[in-house]
């Protein structure tokens, strides 16, 4: 019962050589490659916008968090709704969602906004807190 209560479904994603996870309950859709309308001049992570579901959504580049080269054109695009803010993350690979029961603080994560990590296939994956990340971008502009 307690293990069930603390379980979480995560979606493992890969950006370049970096494997991370996001909370699967926030995921609204996983798209193929999409044409992103490029933007610049805002926060470095805000790389563009794309139309989705009758609205324009911000495209955020995960590579800015993991220190690899920016590439707007990636094979998949994960659309997430975090606290009412819909954002799209271009990624190279999306794997099957996993139920994880153990979440622990991440002390050695190279990924910003990933205060905890989970095990996927026996390997530690940072759990990206997308809401915190988006909040920091909005907050930085205030």
């Amino acid at each position, binding site marked *: 019962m307690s293990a069930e209560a603390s379980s979480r479904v995560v979606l493992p994603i890969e950006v370049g050589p970096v494997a991370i996870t996001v909370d699967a309950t926030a995921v609204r859709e996983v798209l193929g490659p999409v*044409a992103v*309308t*490029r*933007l*610049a*001049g*805002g*926060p470095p992570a*805000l790389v563009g*916008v*794309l*139309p989705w579901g*009758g*609205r*324009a*959504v*911000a495209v955020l580049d995960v590579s800015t968090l993991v220190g690899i080269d920016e590439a707007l054109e990636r094979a998949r695009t994960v659309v997430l709704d975090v606290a009412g*803010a*819909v*954002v799209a993350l271009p990624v190279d690979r999306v794997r099957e969602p996993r139920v994880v029961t153990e979440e622990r603080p991440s002390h050695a994560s190279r990924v910003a906004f990933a205060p905890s990590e989970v095990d996927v296939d026996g390997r530690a994956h940072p759990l990206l807190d997308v809401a915190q990340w*988006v909040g920091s*971008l*909005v907050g*930085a*502009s*205030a």
Partner: protein
Amino acid sequence: MTAVLRRSFVALHDRGFGLAIPCEAVHALAERRGGDDATVPSISTSLGLAPGGASRGSRLVVLGDGEACVAFAADEVLGVVEVDASDVLAMPELVRRTLPALLSLALVDGRSLVVVDAEGLASRGRSEEANDA
């Protein structure tokens, strides 16, 4: 029969950005000649999208009215496009707060153009002109 509201924009490209300006805000479009003033700012630079520096844009987009007109350089004017109002999507909050000069996203024949705040852009252009004078 339902009336479909449509909006008209001048579509242009500058420094890799696809932009749309409401037609009612555009006073004139012109070719930029070789001897023209090289200090005309690039429209994408004025919007904060591209870094500063001399503009090589070959077209001039003139915004405003009468003596309050202000010109911006652009690489290419694609033409006038008409877009259903339902295909003009408001920018997400993150964009509105960090790039307030970008108002919405217009969907045109499968591609997207960024609709700019022409009034704000003209106002900034006039301020920059006054500072340079």
